[in-house]
């Protein structure tokens, strides 16, 4: 490219093309790094957003707390893995009736 100097008088700094090449390659490498990290943040944000959306919009995912009356012979036998007898059931129901009927307010 000497004709640019001879015929047009255009000069360039010493080692210009070597330094310029390094600059261009560095810019390229930086931009690819930025692209990857930008994509990582984009994907993370998208995942969190989708999870939040699902969590708040689908009530079936919510766990309902169920309370058991542990004194009930049916429940207690299930919990304790025992066999339920008619006697136990009758006792329980009689107790319930008695406590309902003879409830004395303070």
């Amino acid at each position: 490219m000497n004709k640019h100097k001879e015929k047009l008088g255009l000069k360039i700094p010493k080692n210009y093309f070597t330094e310029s090449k390094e600059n261009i390659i560095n810019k390229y490498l930086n931009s690819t790094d930025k692209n990857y990290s930008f994509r990582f943040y984009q994907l993370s944000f998208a995942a969190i957003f989708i999870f939040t959306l699902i969590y708040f919009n689908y009530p079936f995912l919510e766990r309902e707390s169920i309370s058991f009356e542990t004194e009930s012979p049916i429940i207690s036998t299930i919990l304790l893995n025992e066999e339920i007898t008619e006697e136990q059931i009758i006792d329980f129901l009689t107790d319930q009736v008695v406590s309902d009927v003879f409830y004395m307010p303070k």
Partner: protein
Amino acid sequence: MKEGALLKLLKNPGSKSEGFTLLVDLYQEKLYWMIRKMVLSHDSANDVLQETYIRIFKGIDNFKGNSAISTWMYRIAYNECLRFLSKESKLLRVELDISDSDYSKKLYADSYFDPNELSTKFHTILSELTVNQRNIFNMKYFDELKFKEISDIIGININTIKSTYYLVEKKIKKEINE
């Protein structure tokens, strides 16, 4: 290296960096000189060259191979020069059919311009040409591009490019030999 092999390197994510380094090795100097003759100062040419390569990198995935990769790169560089010149002159677009009234001012302001008798003659003639005529002459005479390539780069009919070049060449030969 053949263009097909170079494109393969550029399209493959694993070898993209290698392909891009080759693009810089092969075309950096050629693109610089094309840009320098359009923007005139070294510092501006350096800025435009860097910007050109950023655009090449960003656009390489969309390159369909409808033209040679060198033509595609020259076209990006040419458009980047026009963008720079319009920003510099604070105009929406560069007037290509008139001469650049600031040509000599920009040239002599550059610390990397070292005039001699021949270059002064050349620049006197070049400064009188329209921007299009000057670009066509420079691309053919100094950058040694083919008429078809010049036509693809600047988007002007190939016959107009040929007639413009021969007209300018005749004028320059006449004035330099005087």
